[in-house]
């Protein structure tokens, strides 16, 4: 943009690393604001002297920016690139400004400054921790009609997107020797050491630039240059090495079993006009031989009254804003601390010309050198004092200071407070790796204790404070990791010289003076979820003794920042209230993700057409061309019906069924599973797998087979062809192919390993065209060579090999329609050509193509079952009327014992029968239930259900199959199907509705 740069009141000339030569603009709640390239939304807002950015979850209190990193609990904004690219709850401290970015505050109405929800803050005494468990119970129906909608509307933060996400995400699997999490001093030192020793290294950091604490700590000199410059040089050095991958803007979010670590890279969210080639985010799924955790530590806030007022920040964050972004957090900044780090921040601000009215230190005797330096800079230091309360509402305006041991209060006007309660080592990733933390009582912190995986922690996340010690520890870890992974390489040593950087002392966990037990003040522990010190004490008072209970009752640490600031404070307050030591109360579990992760990034490419593979038969396009409507069956698209001239499904199916029975129809049966079973023991193997006998099946013959699991229930069915003595062509149901092959392999490999049998899936190798109907032979005959198609030579349930349309075929005389029919197996690549040729002939003969719906009707007219429709995993072969398919003389087959269990041979089992609608016209609904007495009260005794039901154009009546208790003995009995608005009378019959004698099969 060419517009002149607007004034940014808090931007300090000469400070920071951003360039005024790169101006940008963005909007906040509709107002256009200037920024510099490299700003985060937070730094840009503060530069414009805006601290008030949102409202809290429960009390709707005005909130400002607290931190400069991913631990931010308050500054959550809606970020929008365009209407479809709206994202709620983005941390302003992480989101980089790009030209044109639109940011909106959340959880307020009608505006950020005047929020009606603020009434909650006024009535907050009513809204104590867990209050909702104690009320809203009367009247009984009012909870989900009245109270709950009210609560729901008040809760929530940003608004969910309402448009389909137009962005693209990417993912990549990566393997490396050493994965280093964190690009601060420790991570970079470890990376340099590991890389130098030949290890394949990945190093990642969540920030756009490496350096970690070097972003704010300008007192450090490494290898003769300022720390931040050293970090940039180290990063460049690493990036130039072939064995190193450097990932910025990349957060390690989850540490899973066996050194599997998930990283999220924000690829284009910082760009004003990202190239269409770029994904928004990229998921890295890294498997590392060794992980070096160098995730640093996070500064804690101080828990005092009204510590949530906008303008109150962490000290190191204020230092980041100044030293990296060139932004002062205020003009008149108070300091409240229990830790030395705040002094460094105060000095930097003071030296940048900011007024520091006082450093309030709860310690009686802080580091004398620091106190002396403060005094030398003209800063008043109040040791042994606390901030009893902050004044102001939409922006902090004063701090009320008093001696810790009691005494008069002094109100000091300020426009910002920076604070430090000490530092919490970031043990998140270590803990996620299932390592056990240990308590460092001297410094009141948890550090890595017992490791569970191949990883090591270095630097401040390991509780190492001294700069030289950090570097030594990191180099050692890097070198050791490299030699651990490549034991035969000789070790190369590196050295890094560092000066400056103080090991900051001092800590306060729990409530600060003035917010102790008994004080009725709002001293926030968890900002976003509005959990105060007194809420935690109330939880303990009400009997919640486990820290997990305290967390759940108060919601402490459950907000979007996942307790990065609040967990230790909450724990300390609970421990105090319980009268226990901290480690006795225990830490809550650290769970993935470390920071919230976009669903889309985890989904990556697995959406739309790539959500699951779509399987199409070789003839698919020809079917599309003749107008097929498709249905999903598993991953397959199957032709459902072929409407002509505006037919609906019903009309099309009627025509297809009629044409097939009276003339000829063709059907794409390619989706059926096919397994080639080969070997000298193949027949014996099938004899064990199927309930049917297979030993005596002749070469060139087909047999319908039933397969059970050991429990005796029907698992799958299909036709088996014996191609040769030692070769079978087995077919399975469409959905059953993989599990049938898996089951066969299981038995073959583990139970019958002595058998010489080989199994090969051939489902995709064969295209299958069923041609059925009285004219089927006439249709195919002209195209077939080398096979005698006569009824004598190729009777029903036999097969022969030859050619069709010049293509090799396994031609099977079989029928799933009850008509004379053929199933033509040809190599898949020829499927479409053969289909097209045959279809031309079929059409010329006034035949038709039929789809799965007509296939279902035609087979139901004959009472043939469909496994999964007429059986449901509780049906035995006997129940399905297929007792004939169970080899009575066999001494073993899968299911032989299960079938004999008491309940499977008991009387009264549901058996598959036919049903006639007595009115001759009502087509029953599949799934409808059957009763003997329709007038009985609910709950009714149901004796069965309708598994298949259709209008049969051929029989000119409705037909149905049903599983009914003792059905085989109920032939002719009148039963009832009670529907919502009527009762349909039915009569039990045999499940055959066309050609009961079966003569048509044999034409």
């Amino acid at each position: 943009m060419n517009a002149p740069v607007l004034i940014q009141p808090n931007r300090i000339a000469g400070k920071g690393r951003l360039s005024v030569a790169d101006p940008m603009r963005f909007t906040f709640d509709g107002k256009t604001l200037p920024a510099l390239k490299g700003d985060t939304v937070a730094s840009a807002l503060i530069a414009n002297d805006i601290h008030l950015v949102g409202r809290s979850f429960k009390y709707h209190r005005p909130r400002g920016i607290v931190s400069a990193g991913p631990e931010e609990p308050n500054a959550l904004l809606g970020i929008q690139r365009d209407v479809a690219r709206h994202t709620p709850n983005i941390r302003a401290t992480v989101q980089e400004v790009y030209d044109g970015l639109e940011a909106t505050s959340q959880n307020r109405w009608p505006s950020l400054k005047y929020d009606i929800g603020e009434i909650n803050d006024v009535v907050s005494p009513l809204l104590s921790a867990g209050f909702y468990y104690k009320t809203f119970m009367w009247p009984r129906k009012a909870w989900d009609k009245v109270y709950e909608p009210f609560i729901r509307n008040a809760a929530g933060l940003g608004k969910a997107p309402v448009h389909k996400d137009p962005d693209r995400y990417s993912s990549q699997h990566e393997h490396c020797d050493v994965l280093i999490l964190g690009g601060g001093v420790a991570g970079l030192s470890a990376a340099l050491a590991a890389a130098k020793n030949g290890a394949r290294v990945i190093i990642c950091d969540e920030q756009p630039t490496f350096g970690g604490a070097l972003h704010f700590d300008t007192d450090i000199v490494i290898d003769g240059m300022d720390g931040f410059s050293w970090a940039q040089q180290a990063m460049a050095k690493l990036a130039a090495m072939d064995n190193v991958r450097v990932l910025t803007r990349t957060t390690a979010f989850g540490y899973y079993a066996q050194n599997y670590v998930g990283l999220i890279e924000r690829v284009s969210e910082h760009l004003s006009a990202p190239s269409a080639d770029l994904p928004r985010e990229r998921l890295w799924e890294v498997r590392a031989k060794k992980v070096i955790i160098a995730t640093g530590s996070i500064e804690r806030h101080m828990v005092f009254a009204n510590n949530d007022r906008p303008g109150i920040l962490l000290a190191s964050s204020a230092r980041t804003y100044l030293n990296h972004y060139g932004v002062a957090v205020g003009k008149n900044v108070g300091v409240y601390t229990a830790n030395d780090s705040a002094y460094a921040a105060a000095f930097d601000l003071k030296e940048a010309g900011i007024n520091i009215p006082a450093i309030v230190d709860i310690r009686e005797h802080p580091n004398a050198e620091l106190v002396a330096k403060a005094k030398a800079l003209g800063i008043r230091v109040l040791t042994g004092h606390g901030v009893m309360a902050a004044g102001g509402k939409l922006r902090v305006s004063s701090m009320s200071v008093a001696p810790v041991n009691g005494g008069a209060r002094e109100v000091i006007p300020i426009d910002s407070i920076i604070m430090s309660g000490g530092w919490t080592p970031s043990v998140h990733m270590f803990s996620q790796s299932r390592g056990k933390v240990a308590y460092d009582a001297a410094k009141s912190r948890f550090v890595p204790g017992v490791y569970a995986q191949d990883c090591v922690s270095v630097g401040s996340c390991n509780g190492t404070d001294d700069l030289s010690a950090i570097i030594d520890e990191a180099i050692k870890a890097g070198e050791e990791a490299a030699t651990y992974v490549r034991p035969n390489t000789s070790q190369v040593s590196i050295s890094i010289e560092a000066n400056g950087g103080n090991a900051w002392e001092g800590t306060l966990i729990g409530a600060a003076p003035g917010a102790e037990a008994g004080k009725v003040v709002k001293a926030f522990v968890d900002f976003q979820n509005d959990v105060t010190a007194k809420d935690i004490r109330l939880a303990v008072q009400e009997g919640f003794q486990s820290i997990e209970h305290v967390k759940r009752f108060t919601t402490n640490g459950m907000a979007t920042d996942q307790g990065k600031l609040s967990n230790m404070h909450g724990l300390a307050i609970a421990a105090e209230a319980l009268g226990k030591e901290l480690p006795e109360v225990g830490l809550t579990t650290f769970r993935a993700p470390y920071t919230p992760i976009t669903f889309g990034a985890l989904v990556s490419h697995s959406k739309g057409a790539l959500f699951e593979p779509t399987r199409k038969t070789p003839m698919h396009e020809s079917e599309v061309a003749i107008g097929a409507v498709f249905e999903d069956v598993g991953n397959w698209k199957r032709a459902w019906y072929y409407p002509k001239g505006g037919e609906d499904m019903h009309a099309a199916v009627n025509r297809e069924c009629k044409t097939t029975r009276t003339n000829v129809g063709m059907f794409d049966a390619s989706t059926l599973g096919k397994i080639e079973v080969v070997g000298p023991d193949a027949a014996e193997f099938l004899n064990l797998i199927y309930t049917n006998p297979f030993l005596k099946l002749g070469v060139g013959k087909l047999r319908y087979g039933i397969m059970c699991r050991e429990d005796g229930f029907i698992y799958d069915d299909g036709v088996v062809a014996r191609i040769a003595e030692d070769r079978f062509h087995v077919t399975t149901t469409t959905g059953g192919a993989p599990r049938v092959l898996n089951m066969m392999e299981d038995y073959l490999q583990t139970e019958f390993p002595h058998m010489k049998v080989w199994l090969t899936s051939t489902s995709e190798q064969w295209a299958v065209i069923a041609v059925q109907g009285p004219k089927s032979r006439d249709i195919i005959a002209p195209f077939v060579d080398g096979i005698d198609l006569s009824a004598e030579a190729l009777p029903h349930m036999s097969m022969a090999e030859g050619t069709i349309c010049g293509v090799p075929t396994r031609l099977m005389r079989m029928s799933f329609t009850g008509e004379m029919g053929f199933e033509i197996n040809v190599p898949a690549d020829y499927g479409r050509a053969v289909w097209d040729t045959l279809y031309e002939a079929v059409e010329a003969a006034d035949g038709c193509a039929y789809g799965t719906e007509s296939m279902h009707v035609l087979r139901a007219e004959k009472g043939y079952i469909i496994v999964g429709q007429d059986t449901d995993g509780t049906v035995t072969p006997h129940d399905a009327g297929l007792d004939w398919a169970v080899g009575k003389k066999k001494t073993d087959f899968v299911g032989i014992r299960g079938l004999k269990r008491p309940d499977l041979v008991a009387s009264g089992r549901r058996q598959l029968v036919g049903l006639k609608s007595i009115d001759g016209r009502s087509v029953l609904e599949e799934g409808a239930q059957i009763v003997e007495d329709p007038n009985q009260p609910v709950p009714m005794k149901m004796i069965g259900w309708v598994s298949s039901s259709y209008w049969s154009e051929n029989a000119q009546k409705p037909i149905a199959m049903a599983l009914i208790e003792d059905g085989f003995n109920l032939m002719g009995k009148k039963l009832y199907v009670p529907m919502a608005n009527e009762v349909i009378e039915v009569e039990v019959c045999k499940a055959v509705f066309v050609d009961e004698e079966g003569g048509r099969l044999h034409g």
Partner: protein
Amino acid sequence: MRRFSGFAVAREAMRAHKGWGQQWDNPEPKSSYDVIIIGAGGHGLATAYYLAKEHGITNVAVLEKGWLGGGNTGRNTTIIRSNYLFDESAGLYNHAVNLWEGLSQDLNYNVMFSQRGVMMMAHNVHDVQVFKRHVHANRLNGVDNEWLTPEQAKAYCPPLDISKSARYPVMGAALQRKGGTARHDAVAWGYARAAAARGVHIIQNCEVTGIKRGQGGEVTGVETSRGFIGAKKVGVVAAGNTSHVMQMADVQMPLESFPLQALVSEPVKPCFPCVVMSNTVHAYISQSDKGELVIGAGTDQYTSYSQTGGLHVIQHTLDAICEIFPIFSRMKMLRSWGGIVDVTPDRSPIIAQTPVPGLYVNCGWGTGGFKATPGSGHVFAHTIAKAAPHKINEGYTMERFTTGRLIDEAAAAAVSH
């Protein structure tokens, strides 16, 4: 027990909530009890509550190795429904729904039972057949369940994508309006408080390490990390750890324990009005009162007691969620976690006496036990008190795995063509 009410809250608000006492005591274990329940999850606590309330048996201890409600009770996605197919299941789960409807008042604890409706999506012809079978059976069993067209489903749940071009288009849905969600922690806490008020001892941080048996093989008590505690009857309600606990009494179980993961998104303003389940694409989602999308994943494939699972399982779940609800792609996962679910061969629970006299077991709830909590506790209390099953849980024996009389809801939805 100090009664909870809006009035009590208002009064306490005037005095900084100083008057609230402990919701339940944390007593030292006595030397013996009439009944010991192993496992202070929702089912175990409910059992203790109903033993006291319905059967006057108050000399009861509930032993918990960790913190009460810390297992699957506090880790599930809180879906409540009863539109099951078989009579046994419909009876059990509908019994639970009936109890849910008055539970807040009964316990004097707001468990936030919200009947926002549970909608199960059908994505293919087979789903339609299976769900319609459920709707018909439910109607005749007096269980609320209705069939919706895709347009009706969209009207009930506006974020739904019902476009015909979706990879798995929506072909309809079965809706149980009486179904919904409840606040899981409140269920455990409400039962704990109400049971404690009737004299039940809830003993946390008390791990059972052995089950003691007398001369006749009968149960005499349990060894724990806090010493031996005698008992006339012991009820094991240990969910994923049931096999492990039952092993202490030399009883092998028809169970396997699997990791089951779930996740929540960051909170957002109300955008999702009901519960949606899709078995075909494996997606289970609702929005909590806090505004988080609560999403259930599938189980990992291997048995485990680790309470963690693989990222790929979470990814598959989100694939499915974003497929049906493409608008959620920019939402963010806030927290994920795992539980251990104990699964029987027919995926239905066992609520029964065991071969060991005095030893009872309530287990095998798999991925869906939360919804049954009140019903489960109610009939299990009956089973323990009377040494005989309630009519509702008569079929839920261990013997069914010998006779073959299974209650196999999942098999009844068999996917095969």
